């Protein structure tokens, strides 16, 4: 485009130049905003790490009113709920993707796909509401625990929220498995299920691990739903029975406490510090997802 600039009439070339300039400015400003946010996060968060002792930071008790800023229960809370959510969502997501892509007749697929996309658009507060009023009482009554607001409840709602992303990414992964692999298996007398289980799914595994990563990213950053259904008690989630006890996540802590802290106080910096931890975790999850994509490209989309 630049080469034939000289041959184009002057008005057109200056118009093109203006458009290009605007696009460039907009493009760079997006990157700029991300950087600014990150710098702001660092500026406000880093003081927490040198103004507080490490023993306190890595303690197990988060009681800001007593100057106890143990972040472990919050980090573990986020991690626990995310992991449980993904463990729940993975088989369902993959099964749904397999159903849509490999089994369902055309018209069912046409109905299911937009429905799943709609699911992705439900506001998280609505899902939280549903979790609070339907799932939590169910958990409390069937399991006979003190409160229905638990890791388990949170994970169920998060799984539900991560599902649409996971389904569509897993579906794309199945879609990229070449037809000739299926044909090869079928032509040997493999059944449809054997073909899916032993050829299609293994060939799609990097795409499926990408689905897991994206689902995780979605789950760990989620705030409103977990605030509503996890009980928000900053306890260490240790042992299996913790699954049915309340927890508090990093996101919920920031959202709940940010409104009440005095600017510049240790508590204020602590919340930003948690923000940094969250940022780093999400960054690594995204990195893993990007790696999965990259590997897939490098191998020509074959696995």
């Amino acid at each position, binding site marked *: 485009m630049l080469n034939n600039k000289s041959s184009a009439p002057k008005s057109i070339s200056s118009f093109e130049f203006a458009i290009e300039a605007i696009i460039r400015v907009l493009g760079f400003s997006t990157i700029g905003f991300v950087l600014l946010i990150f710098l702001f996060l660092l500026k406000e968060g880093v003081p927490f790490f040198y103004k507080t002792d490490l023993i306190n930071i890595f303690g197990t008790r988060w009681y800001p009113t007593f100057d106890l800023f143990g972040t472990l229960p919050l980090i573990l809370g986020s991690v626990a709920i995310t992991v449980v959510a993904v463990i729940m969502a993975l088989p369902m997501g993959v099964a749904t993707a397999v159903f849509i892509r490999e089994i369902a007749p055309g018209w069912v697929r046409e109905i299911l796909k937009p429905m799943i996309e709609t699911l992705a658009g439900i506001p998280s507060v609505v899902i939280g509401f549903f979790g609070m009023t339907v799932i939590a009482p169910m958990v409390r009554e069937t399991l006979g625990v003190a409160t229905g607001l638990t890791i388990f409840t949170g994970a169920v709602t998060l799984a539900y929220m991560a599902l649409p992303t996971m389904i569509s990414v897993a579906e794309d992964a199945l879609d990229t498995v*070449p037809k000739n692999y299926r*044909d090869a298996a079928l032509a040997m007398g493999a059944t449809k299920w054997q073909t899916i289980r032993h050829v299609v799914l293994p*060939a799609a595994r990097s795409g499926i691990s990408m689905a897991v990563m994206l689902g995780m990213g979605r789950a760990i950053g989620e705030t409103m739903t977990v605030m509503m259904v996890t009980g928000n008690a900053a306890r260490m989630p240790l042992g299996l029975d913790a699954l049915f006890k309340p927890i508090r996540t990093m996101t919920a802590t920031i959202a709940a406490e940010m409104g009440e802290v005095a600017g510049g106080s240790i508590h204020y910096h602590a919340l930003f510090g948690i923000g940094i931890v969250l940022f780093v975790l999400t960054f690594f999850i995204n990195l893993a997802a990007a790696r999965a994509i990259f590997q897939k490209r490098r*191998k020509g989309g074959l696995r």
Partner: protein
Amino acid sequence: MEKIVVNHLNFYYGDHIALADTSMSIAEHRVTALIGPSGCGKSTFLRCLNRMNDTIRNTRAEGEILLDGVNIYAPGSDVVTLRQRVGMVFQRPNPFPQSIFNNVSFGPRMLGLAKGSALDDMVEQSLRGAALWDKVKDKLHQDALHLSLGQQQRLCIARAIAVKPEVILMDEPCSALDPIATGHVEELIESLQEHYTIVIVTHSMHQAARVSNFTGFFWLGKLVEFDATEKIFSRPGQKQTEDYITGRAG
């Protein structure tokens, strides 16, 4: 001795008729070649023989195909066992993106034919059968996609014979291969006919002449002529056949 008898086969893709009133007898332990211009229905015919066309939506077959005297299109006949008996090698080599060993052992594992050392033996036998064993015996656990295309195609043949089929269908198995790899596959076809009945689609007249005992010439969805290869290439009964094999039509 006839392995497969096709009687008055019609085949439709939706409303489009791709094969009309095709009848053919395929001799056991012989190589039968199918030739004809592009789009004349060779692949369609081949895929009817193991009902791979069933995987394409909105298709329909009429007439009958007898495998050892039993109609494979009869209601209630089992495609899965049919395809174990009638294996297939495709135009483009399509090994699974897994190890060489896993590719060959895939069928036997799937069908529960063998386990452990019996499975190892089966893999070795199949690879020997496909004249590939010496090339790959030291790298059985390497990715099959690292093999050359010609070797991949022989791997696909090994994979097909690992489930002990009776018939092997090959759809232009050499079209993606260079002349040397083609030569290897042709030699392999020679040696396979001792144990298997082979039906091969090819665009190469020379290949048909070299490897087959019988040749069928298709034209616009019809089987124009079917006879001993030698006769088809020396004294074709139909003008169309003669024009095609001498390169005057195509």
